[in-house]
């Protein structure tokens, strides 16, 4: 094992340019992956914020008493999907309208807005299907006149999220594949550059596992180094965007560590695939 580690480290010293090229290409691949990850993280945060605003509003028929509304709220809170249910009186609705739509204040003079119950749903229950189902159940209350939840808006929001998730997955897989190919190609060059050494190792009785180990370690080290460089570059990019354009959030520490580990796995995979194939040729 000690020899394998030494050989893996020596590979960096013997071919510094090739090694630097390998680490750089891995870093660039992972940086692209990291940038996309950053977009995905911020998009997810933004969507979560928007999603939190999904609410269902049940407008009550004229003459519904406060007691009836309170009883209904008790029933509604028993729905497993419901987080909060708030009674909004006619006066409160009017006051809010005047506050939020100040420029149309005079329109509301002497007007009447219906009382309503505002319902916020729990996380995970804000998809169009669940929101629609809750709305249908609310319509069954005799004194509920109308239920609104911006059906189209909720559906669009979810469509955007689904597209973003699929794009994240597809691009993640694509960048991952590119990283594996790049690492594989650099390991291939290293194997070919050391063909003589490998041939001698075989002649004197080294096992294939022993011959493979330094290359796997080399791939692992390149993956980790590339991952660290990519992480640093992504952090710089996030800092610059935050300072110059708009605030973006960076990866949580465990996600950052996972990213570097991802580099390590890519490095290991790339070298494992390449070294197995190339060893047959030398």
């Amino acid at each position, binding site marked *: 094992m000690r*020899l394998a580690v030494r050989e893996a480290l020596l590979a960096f010293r013997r071919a510094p340019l090739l090694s630097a090229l390998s680490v750089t290409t891995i870093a660039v691949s992972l940086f692209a992956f990291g940038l996309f990850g950053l977009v995905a993280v911020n998009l997810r945060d933004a969507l979560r914020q928007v999603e939190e605003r999904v609410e269902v509003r049940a407008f009550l028929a004229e003459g519904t008493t406060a007691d009836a509304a309170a009883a209904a709220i008790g029933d509604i809170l028993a729905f497993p999907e419901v987080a909060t249910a708030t009674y909004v009186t006619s006066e409160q609705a009017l006051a809010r309208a005047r506050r939020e739509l100040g420029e149309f204040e005079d329109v509301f003079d002497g007007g009447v807005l219906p009382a309503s119950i505002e319902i916020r749903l729990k996380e995970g229950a804000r998809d169009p299907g669940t929101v629609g189902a809750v709305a249908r159940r609310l319509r069954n209350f005799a004194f509920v006149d109308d239920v609104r939840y911006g059906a189209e808006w909720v559906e669009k929001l979810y469509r955007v999220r689904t597209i973003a998730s699929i794009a994240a997955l597809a691009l993640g897989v694509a960048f991952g594949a590119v990283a594996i190919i790049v690492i594989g190609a650099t390991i291939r060059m290293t194997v070919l550059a050391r063909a003589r050494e490998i041939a001698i190792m075989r002649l*004197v009785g080294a*096992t294939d596992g*022993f011959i493979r180990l330094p290359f796997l370690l080399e791939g692992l080290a390149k993956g980790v180094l590339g991952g660290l460089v990519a992480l640093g570059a992504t952090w710089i990019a996030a800092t610059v965007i935050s300072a110059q354009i708009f605030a973006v959030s960076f990866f949580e520490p465990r996600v950052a560590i996972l990213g570097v580990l991802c580099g390590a796995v890519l490095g290991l995979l790339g070298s494992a695939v390449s070294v197995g194939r190339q060893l047959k040729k030398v």
Partner: protein
Amino acid sequence: MIRYTSVHKEYPRTGVALTGVSLTVLKGEFVFLTGPSGAGKSTFLKLLYFEERPTRGEVKIGPVSSATASKSDVAKLRRRIGIVFQDFRLLEDRTAEQNVAFALEVIGTPRAVIPAKVNRALQQVGLAAKATALPRELSGGEQQRVAIARALVNDPMVLIADEPTGNLDDRATRGIFELLRSINASGTAVLMATHNLDLIRKNPFRTLELNRGQLVFDSADSPAGAEDL
């Protein structure tokens, strides 16, 4: 110790390389292998260290058979075989002693015993004084000695030498051959492929001649025959 039984080797592109070769080499024997270029000498030797496997027939060295040996068996077998080539096959960026030590390191020899073994092998080939020289700082004969030291360092039961003097002048050739003889005298079997008929004529060792893949002459069958080569 070594047994070839009806060995036939055919390559997909170049066709038949060896056909119907059967022979036995005893422990501690010195054997010349000769024949024109393309006769099958290298294939014969590659079959011996299991670089190639016979298309038909069997090569057996000690208890290891070409018919059943796994990759791991082959690796273990090669630790008991020393191999030397015409082109030395040294690592250019490592010193003589590092080249020899390499053969021990890659099979997991404990680090503590490596320097002593390397020193002994270099002394055996008369190169202890040049242990720290790089291959490019050594003459052809000296490089071949380093290669022989590397082949010897694991105390092999057989030393395979594929044209070991092919790149050397007469004086270096004599030196290398004397070295191989002394190695053989200490009990290691030596199989040496060579074109040098002069060397064969002057030394009364068993001689095998290959021609077009067939074993056309074995001096063990006709002891006086080496004179006819």
